[in-house]
């Protein structure tokens, strides 16, 4: 079965630094998502992306966050100035359609020190 690939698997950064989390979705997917899970908490929706624009975002997804799909393959999540509370597991997801099965990557564990 095709897989969503996320890199890196672990990222450690200093507070205030910029990080970019990368995802390579499955090639025929059109809808893309970022979710995150803070340790001990629920998996939370961050943002959905379709047709090269954000289709929905949560309250968490403030001006410090951005997403893009610059080359039609990689789908990235950028955090401009990381805070301690951004430490979490970040999951990338993709689907062929809005009501289709959502495939997730294995996640990037972000630790902000």
């Amino acid at each position: 079965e095709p897989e969503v690939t996320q890199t890196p698997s672990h990222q450690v950064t200093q507070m205030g630094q910029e990080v970019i989390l990368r995802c390579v979705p499955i090639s025929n997917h059109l809808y893309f998502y970022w979710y995150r899970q803070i340790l001990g908490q629920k998996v939370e929706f961050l943002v959905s992306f379709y047709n090269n624009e954000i289709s929905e975002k949560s309250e968490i997804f403030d001006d410090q966050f951005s997403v893009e799909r610059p080359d039609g393959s990689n789908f990235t999540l950028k955090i401009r100035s990381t805070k301690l509370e951004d430490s979490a597991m970040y999951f990338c997801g993709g689907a062929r359609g809005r009501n289709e099965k959502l495939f997730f990557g294995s996640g990037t564990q972000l630790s902000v020190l």
Partner: protein
Amino acid sequence: AQSVTQLDSHVSVSEGTPVLLRCNYSSSYSPSLFWYVQHPNKGLQLLLKYTSAATLVKGINGFEAEFKKSETSFHLTKPSAHMSDAAEYFCVVSGRVGSSNTGKLIFGQGTTLQVKP
């Protein structure tokens, strides 16, 4: 607004015995419900999906779930647990605006399944 509540944060069973992971949902419309599993160091994998067809949904690895509207429940079951079933399980509902799915998923808190030999 849609939400799901997983009633147990941790379930422990012996290998070969039945598994029951409980989930209640809240939704204004007929919901789309899912169960996802996460094994250590792996991504979230879809076990099964309910979308208003048959109320008993069969998934992968011998799991199934029954949609009960009267009880607003979507419990996950398996007749006989295997050691490889030890993982984190998430009950999930699809977000909606009006009667349309948004594509966004709303996760429960997760249930850790421990399988003892």
